[in-house]
């Protein structure tokens, strides 16, 4: 029971990412920031108020794609504020708060490559990152549409982007905000562009332990309040449109219709239900 644990110990462990674009990343020196990190901080402030704690000690624990689910499961992390897709497989092991961001999986290419859609990727080399749902997505797409491309998997997003930048790959298929973030930070942002159809729509949410309805309710209520007040749109603007530290670059990715829809109708539907429509 997470609420009790927080109350008893006066501390909470927040799972964060080292570099998940503007959602969650580090400034070094143990400082973690980003859209989801800030939402979580607001949520935890509410939790503190609800529990009547004078002081709540937030511990930040950087997690990776590989260990985030086990860590939430085994109690190391109380609330994971990274860039986790809400899907059915994961729902077997963990629970998700209401969706705060809807990701669209897109294709980044070199601006001068002339590629504008996935169909043109036939025979090309496509990069994506190991241990992400994009890999599966890409393979699904390949099989369904009979396109044939060579896939290369980077160790992490930065590596994958480097594959594109150095010409080892012709395209980088990944979550739109990650593509936008990497392009924004690159040496020559104008050399890249995001093109083509949306390959998939994925609800990204804050992850918490399964079978803890009380905690889920607190978190959900807190987030819903942000949505209702319109506060969440301001947070989004701060991280995805305005310049952000450390290099003061802009991601430049205004909220999509799908994201706005998720704010208007708070829900914790998994990715499978988005795919249906």
């Amino acid at each position: 029971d997470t609420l009790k644990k927080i109350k008893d110990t006066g501390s909470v462990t927040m799972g964060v990412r080292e570099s998940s674009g503007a959602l969650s990343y580090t400034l070094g020196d143990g400082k973690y920031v980003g859209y989801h990190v800030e939402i979580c901080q607001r949520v935890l402030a509410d939790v503190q108020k609800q529990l009547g704690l004078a002081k709540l000690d937030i511990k930040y624990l950087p997690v990776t794609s590989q260990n985030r689910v086990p860590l939430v499961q085994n109690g190391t992390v109380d609330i994971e504020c990274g860039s986790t897709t809400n899907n059915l497989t994961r729902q077997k092991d963990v629970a998700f708060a209401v969706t705060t961001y809807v990701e669209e999986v897109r294709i980044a290419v070199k601006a001068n490559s002339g590629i504008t859609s996935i169909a043109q990727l036939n025979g090309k080399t496509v990069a994506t990152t190991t241990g992400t749902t994009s890999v599966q997505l890409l393979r699904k797409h390949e099989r369904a549409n009979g396109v044939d491309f060579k896939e290369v998997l980077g160790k992490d997003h930065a590596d994958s982007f480097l594959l594109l930048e150095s010409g080892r790959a012709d395209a980088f298929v990944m979550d739109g905000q990650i593509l936008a973030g990497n392009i924004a930070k690159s040496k020559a942002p104008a050399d890249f562009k995001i093109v083509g159809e949306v390959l998939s729509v994925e609800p990204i949410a804050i992850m918490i332990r399964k079978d803890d309805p009380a905690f889920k309710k607190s978190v959900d209520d807190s987030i819903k309040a942000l949505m209702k007040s319109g506060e969440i749109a301001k947070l989004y603007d701060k991280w995805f449109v305005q310049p952000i530290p450390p290099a003061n670059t802009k991601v430049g990715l205004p909220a999509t219709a799908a994201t706005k829809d998720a704010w208007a109708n708070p829900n914790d539907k998994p990715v499978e239900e988005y795919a249906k429509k």
Partner: protein
Amino acid sequence: MPSWDWQLYCTDMVTEEAAPKCFGAPGYETYLDAMVHAWGWTMTVSILGLLVALIVGSLIGILRTVPNKKVALFGETWTEVFRNIPLIVQLFLWYHVVPQIFPVLQGVPSSVLVVLAIGLFTSARIAEQVKAGILTLPKGQRYAGQALGLTLPQTYRHVLLPMAFRIVIPPLTSESMNIVKNSAVAFAVSIPDLAQFALQASEQSSFVQIFLPVTLLYFVSAFLINRIAKLIEAYVRVPGILGAK
């Protein structure tokens, strides 16, 4: 812990649908297919890397014992450079940096670069062992060879190396096992090996169910190499010495 789901291994990795056959069903790639395929990559990278490491490492190790200062210095430098930078960093340099400096390498597939990186990294360690093996031989052996009129290369070929290699089989065995384990970094440059499979598949399904068989496969592979080395060791054992212990 979640319960064990045997069906998982017969499930298609892409569509998450059950395949008609667990292994080798056309049009499907089950978890089992992918794992076996990945294992193949791990072994390929390891064995080719081992070949590079053994050949280059032996050569460098020999150079380091030659009574010629310049040649020996070259061997020393080689060893120091390749063993003092973490493999994962070297791998990255081979993949992303070296081709920028030598554009000819740009077209080289990443699997070749990985084999080179792992092979050369391990060559430094093997050179170290081979050198130690040659130096543990009594100095008199070198003298005896030369006193019979053998040239230096002949002395190495017929006198020093046959014994030195026998002596260093045990440390070379553990280096060979290390190479299988070290190959787990190859995924970082997009080799679809066991490590990459483990990371991708465990993301799509359960951690324990993927990592347990993968760990076992690594274990078995290392063990296999160990057994082969033991066979070689027994085969080349000289009556009357070594092995007596």
